[in-house]
């Protein structure tokens, strides 16, 4: 615990010196939220699931914060630690793979939380979006979703060969998902093909899990179970991968 505490606090300090990550977590989602809400206006219609575009996007953009962080920033960070020998340096000083992953997970979760709160604040101030109907459900969905996606990012970062490839693969995964997971066009305006692709994307599950409590549809058990499944499988695979020092 002592090790994880120190590792996490140093990681948090390092993140504040990392403009790329801060940009993706704090600036990018807010800018896109503002642009999309500005473009689509503030009229409540059926495509927007009966609410205003700003309201619709507020919930789904928490998903964007989580996914951007988890798929773009987290994997390249961990891959750089492996590539540059930082992980080896830590291992040689008795720091286990689990401790490294756990501290990265905590940092990722806190960043996602910070980014989401900044987003909600911006959306509230500018578009006067409604607050979530179920705060408790929101906290549950956010916690599960953020932990699950950051862990998925850690798995990605533990298998790719270099930090550069992590960034390429992360961007390659993020942008198509971002277009198709209800964070770009809402599902109701998608074609059948788009929607069937959308259905199998993990980010769609994340966004649905976040929208349900936000709009007052309770918590979606299916989505949460899938996200917990991703968390467990990706977490175990990442630990296994990092512990296999012999390559």
């Amino acid at each position, binding site marked *: 615990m002592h090790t994880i505490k120190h590792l996490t606090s140093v990681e948090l300090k*390092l993140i504040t010196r990392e403009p790329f990550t801060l940009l993706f977590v704090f600036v990018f989602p807010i800018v896109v939220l503002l642009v999309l809400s500005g473009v689509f206006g503030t009229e409540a219609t059926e495509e927007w699931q009966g609410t205003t575009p700003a309201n619709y996007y507020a919930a789904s953009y928490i998903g964007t914060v989580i996914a951007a962080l988890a798929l773009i920033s987290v994997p390249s960070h961990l891959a750089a630690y492996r590539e540059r020998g930082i992980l080896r*340096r830590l291992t040689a000083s008795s720091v286990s793979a689990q401790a490294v992953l756990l501290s990265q997970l905590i940092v990722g979760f806190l960043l996602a939380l910070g980014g989401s709160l900044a987003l909600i604040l911006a959306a509230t101030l500018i578009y006067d979006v409604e607050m979530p109907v179920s705060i408790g459900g929101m906290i549950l969905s956010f916690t599960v979703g953020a932990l699950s996606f950051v862990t998925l990012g850690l798995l990605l970062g533990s298998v790719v060969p270099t930090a550069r490839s992590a960034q390429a693969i992360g961007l390659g995964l993020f942008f198509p998902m971002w277009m198709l997971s209800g964070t770009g066009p809402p599902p109701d305006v998608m074609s059948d093909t788009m929607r069937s692709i959308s259905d199998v994307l993990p980010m769609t599950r994340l966004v649905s899990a976040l929208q349900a409590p936000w709009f007052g549809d309770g918590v979606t058990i299916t989505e949460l179970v899938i996200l917990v499944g991703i968390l467990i499988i990706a977490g175990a695979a990442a630990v296994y991968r990092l512990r296999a020092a012999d390559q």
Partner: protein
Amino acid sequence: MDEEVISVQHLHKQYRDHVAVEDVTLSVRRGEIFGIAGPNGAGKTTSVECIQGLRKPDSGEIRVLGLDPARDITRLRQRIGSQLQQSALPERIKVWEALDLFASFVPGESNWPALIDQWGLTGKETASFANLSGGQQQRLFIALALINDPEVVFLDELTQGLDPAARHATWGLIRAARDQGKTIVLVTHFMDEAEILCDRLAIIDHGRVIDLDTPQALINRHGGPQRLTFSTDHNDLNWLETLDVVQDVTRTGSQFTVTGTGSLVPLVSHTLVERGIVPDDLRIHQASLEDTFLRLTGRDQMNGLAD
């Protein structure tokens, strides 16, 4: 002083497509600077990584401070320190943060501010890792390796990329660490470094230990004959060959070269003086560890003693 702190018996390690370590057997005594020298790709780093428990050997037996790195790694890591080849720290971490962080992995109080002073990092406490010079980064790594006050310190390619002044300064600090009672295992492909610094060393090539001894003993054994050169007006010095230690006498103009072994220098000098020949340009040419190494590893392109 002959207590054995590391014992390696028939270490073998294979990667998917090639054998990195064929068969390495060596032992390191407490309080010595022990060198592991060899050309690139000889299996040096893999060997010490197995010894430090960073890799699992395929076969062989390793004991470090009586512990098996494969099984007792947690206990062992508290008693060893490592400076790894090609390792790094996050670019934006500051010197003091790195020391403070690594100190937090060690049970008990750590005196890392003293290490800053000892390793010449004073004034650099708040500098980012990426902004340190190569020498400063290396000194920081050594400080990190010493942060748990280890009994055995592993240093892998310690002076790679350092300028001559920084190398000499580093050597002094390594000796200081040994004089504090630490055992040091130094991996290097610089033979001048091995010759100057190591009490004993193992020369590794193609994954095997070719020989293991003090630098001087290795030179004596494998360095080839010694040569003496001097000039004199005398034409015929072939009588020198009657001395047991002399193998050969050759002449080019007024310059003579006497080749031989053992106590060549005192015996030949004495005999010359006895006969009234007192050259003022007598020079001794003895193989350095580097020459010895090139002969041993067959890298001298003269078909040395390599198998």
